[in-house]
């Protein structure tokens, strides 16, 4: 069974008199242990689609199923709960909090929960992405690639089912991008999670299991 499923999702933005239809009836699914890459020209609706999958935004029409549950009518607080427990996010510009150390950044999504072993899990995750010796460094003391690895560790702290990445290699050079993608592929298999990525980066296609192409809000192929 697919861990995430979009059925005939339409997203319209109303800005004044104008209406932009960013998604025009999109069907999508992703399974555990699978990496799906969404590609398409700029403005075609990739980020909008990822926001639907990531429960950051709600569709104008259509339904979203998470782990077989229909989450379309969920309230903001219920969606927040799902994001924390089931989803992990990695952004193009890392989005680490500058006043927190690497390990604190990794702990952040779990810090308001009173689980006991999160510090150990955070350290373990940082070790797994090769940053065991940078635990107490703040983001400004880390390179772009290292920051993105901290972000990946952060996305996994709550043991998600799905990892969402919007242009994860967009701000990194080729070699760094490659090591990040290798890292993600390894973690995808170890944790048996679905990875959904949006990219312009050709080399990402070497790591992907399946590619979805979107043009002007419509899925091709």
């Amino acid at each position: 069974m697919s861990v995430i499923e979009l059925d005939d999702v339409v997203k319209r933005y109303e800005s004044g008199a104008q209406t932009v239809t960013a998604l025009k009836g999109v069907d999508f699914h992703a399974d555990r242990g699978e990496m799906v890459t969404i590609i398409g020209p700029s403005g075609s609706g990739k980020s909008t689609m990822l926001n639907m999958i990531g429960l950051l935004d709600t569709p104008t029409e259509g339904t979203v199923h998470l782990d077989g549950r229909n989450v379309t009518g969920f309230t903001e607080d219920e969606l927040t709960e799902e994001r924390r427990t089931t989803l992990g996010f990695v952004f193009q510009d890392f989005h680490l909090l500058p006043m927190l150390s690497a390990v604190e950044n990794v702990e952040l999504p779990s810090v308001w929960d009173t689980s006991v072993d999160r510090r150990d899990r955070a350290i373990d995750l940082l070790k797994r992405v090769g940053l065991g010796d940078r635990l107490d460094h703040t983001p400004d003391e880390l390179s772009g690639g290292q920051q993105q690895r901290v972000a990946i560790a952060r996305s996994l702290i709550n043991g998600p089912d799905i990892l969402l990445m919007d242009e994860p290699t967009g701000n990194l050079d080729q070699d760094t991008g490659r090591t990040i993608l290798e890292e993600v592929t390894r973690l995808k298999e170890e944790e048996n999670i679905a990875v959904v990525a949006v990219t312009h980066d050709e080399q990402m296609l070497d790591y992907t299991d399946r590619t979805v192409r979107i043009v002007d809000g419509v899925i091709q192929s």
Partner: protein
Amino acid sequence: MSVADALWRFPSAMMAWRNLGRNRMRTALAALGIVIGVVAISSLGMAGVALQQQATSNLGSLTNQVSVSAGQDSDYDGVTEDQVEEIRSIITDAEVIPQKSNSTTVSSRGQEAYVSVTGVTNAAALYDVTSGEAPERLQTGALISNSTARELGLELGDPVEYDGQLYRITGLIDSGSGFGPGGGRGELVIPISGLADQEHYDSVTIIAADGDAATEISETLDEHFNTDGRDEEEILRVSSYASAQENINSFLNTLQLALLGIGGISLVVASVAILNVMLMSTVERRGEIGVLRAVGIRRGEVLRMILTEATFLGTLGGLVGAGCSLVVGAVMFQLVVGDPTGVLQWASARYLLYGFAFAVFASVLSGIYPAWKAANDSPVEALRG
């Protein structure tokens, strides 16, 4: 490391603390606004207390006294023995001290001084001696004011003469302080027998437990002696200083309210500054807060984090402000009352607490809107920047 670990147990507090630490200058300036507000509100409040204490100490111990003398409708030129007995029978729970008074010139070693003379038996209840003693039954000795003694070179044990009779000085008293009889003039206190040629008492002093009791006694006496059927007349003139004290108090209370109002305005200004700072810093951190929301931090937790920031600002400013106010208050008490420790009494120290509490309250209040706004921002919009 361990402090940070402990703080992580209160993530809102931890995050708030770190956020405030990011822009220390801005935090300091925002807190400074609060400090000024607290100093204004507390020191103006304490100024009112200092003034009140000064006024009270000027009235001296007189506020619990009732003074009775012959009224305009009296048939006598003083308070009669019978009237004194009548007063004693009505007022059982206060000291009733009849006095006779005159004035004379006292001379010694070629120096002369004009003094008022008071004949009284219970000198102890009426006078505080600075040296020697004031007996409860003054029968042979005399009390004399310090200033007169100094003027005439008299000391304890020396004799003074009044109306051909010699009295040995047993105690020295302070004179010229307060609004009491005699004002700045020197005073000689002798046994009541020394003024035996005056038939009636010039005045009767009644010493009550406190100002309220004094007011009550004066009302009772007024009603008893001065109401004949339905007619008002003045057989005895009954006056107490409690009403003077009340007037002064009500004036001072008004003054204090005005001062606190001014202090309050400055704290309102300070909270507008905090509102501005909180709003700016949440707008700047919009993307960051979007990330928090994206990774599953609840709206309530974002709200709490930002409110905690405001609370910290208020607490910080409030504490520093209370510290500064304490110093300001001590200086003020030194200047007005002459005793800097007066600031520590609850009557004035409570304004430190009020100032601090108001600072925290105002900060939290001005944190609410920015916190609410940040917490309810759509994460998608926030992440787009």
